[in-house]
């Protein structure tokens, strides 16, 4: 920097740090997974899976940011925070990301509604798969209808989460 007094004058020509550019999406997904640390003692699966929602929002908003393997570490962290068996979100999230990669090129037209559709299918897949995994690992008779309300409001919440991710994205790329 030539003139120290110009430091606060303009934002032009300055770049955000690499950590902010690459780490922001990961950190937000981790924070989303940590919502289960809130002191809510739920009597039914009522809380939307915020980690999954934020991951989907970033993936659909910024396709170049996250590779498919990012589902592994993020899914492992989500498994540690939620009561799901370890490996459940690891498997489901990675499969979801691979699936989005595969589907993306087959769609001729992409827009807001297509994104929401992709996210809805992904949410239904992950929640149904999570209920199935919970059932086969000693969870007893868990019926799919039990997670249906959670599916519904997770899907309805997706547009809101995308907006918030877009807001964070604007902060992320601006120095």
């Amino acid at each position, binding site marked *: 920097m030539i003139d120290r007094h110009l430091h606060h004058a303009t934002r032009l020509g300055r770049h955000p740090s690499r950590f902010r550019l690459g780490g922001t999406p990961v950190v937000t997904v981790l924070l989303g997974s940590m919502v*289960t640390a809130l002191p809510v003692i739920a*009597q039914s*699966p009522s809380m939307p899976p915020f980690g999954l929602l934020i991951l989907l929002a970033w993936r659909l908003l910024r396709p170049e940011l996250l590779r498919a393997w990012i*589902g*592994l570490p993020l899914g492992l962290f989500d498994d540690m*925070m939620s009561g799901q068996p370890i490996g459940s979100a690891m498997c489901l999230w990675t499969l979801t990301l691979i699936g989005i990669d595969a589907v993306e090129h087959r769609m001729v037209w992409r827009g807001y509604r297509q994104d929401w559709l992709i996210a809805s299918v992904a949410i239904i897949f992950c929640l149904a798969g999570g209920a199935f995994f919970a059932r086969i690992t000693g*969870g*007893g008779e868990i019926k799919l209808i039990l997670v249906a309300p959670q599916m519904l409001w997770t899907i309805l919440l997706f547009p809101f989460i995308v907006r918030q991710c877009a807001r964070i994205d604007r902060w992320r790329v601006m120095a």
Partner: protein
Amino acid sequence: MARPPSRRPGHNRKAQYGLFASYVVAVTGAVVGLLLVVVAIFDPAGFAAIRTGTAELTRPLSTGLRHMVSGAASIDEVLAAYWRAGTQNVALRRQVEADRNQIIEAKAVARENARLKKLLKLVDEDGSEVLAARLISSSSSSARRFARLNAGSWQGVRAGMPVRAPEGLIGRVHTTTPNTAEVLLLTDSSNIVPVRRANDDIPAISTGLGDGTLEIRALSAGRNPFKPGDLLVTSGIGGIYQPNVPVAVVVRVQGEIAYGVPLANPSRVDAVVVERAFEQVVTRSDANTPMEQETSAAENAAAP
């Protein structure tokens, strides 16, 4: 909007290999995740140790928030109490008058009870209570019903110990970490509790449904003996739960199944008590005299 640009890296070999490698890692990882789930089928608590780190790290956060929430949650109760202060005062005073006589009677009964027990040489004060702690968070986004307890193996909590509140049964400890423990709530669909109807000892099995209610099946053949309003308590069969802990009240009967609601709501209770498993309490041999052991064995046999 047109579709996003292709992720195919063109003719750049290095980028091609990089993309390929990322998919290999992803698919391998997904298979590993599946294998972990398969392992969990046979050993549900096997990888619970992995949770230790996150459970310990989020414990202070959850505990702090829990204190704030319990403060905020009682504000409406305080306001409501002010609103009804006058009538409530009169009603409470009448209640106290009525209760006083009953307390005197109860004291007399308790004394007589103690005397009779002394005659029978039964030990009632068994010291089954391990500690009292708070529930600080739960698996709110999962299909399983776990709650996290603010005490763990360093405080003496062990897997399998029953957890109860003053209002009734909460569940039992599933896994422990040094300072936290996961409690399998009564409403989890894998939590099966042997119960009996409080007034006439009809045995039944209570299973959680995962949505905050319980499914109660009578063990006796024939038509369903339950009706709405029946009170269910633990029967002590199975050796985990102490007998006579309130469990649930029946709200609906449908065919052979009765549906109940737990009496203790884990989100409303202030503190919960971790107890020793019932079998450990009755067969504990810290008093090493053969006489004591004999009586405790007799008590065990006499337990319903």
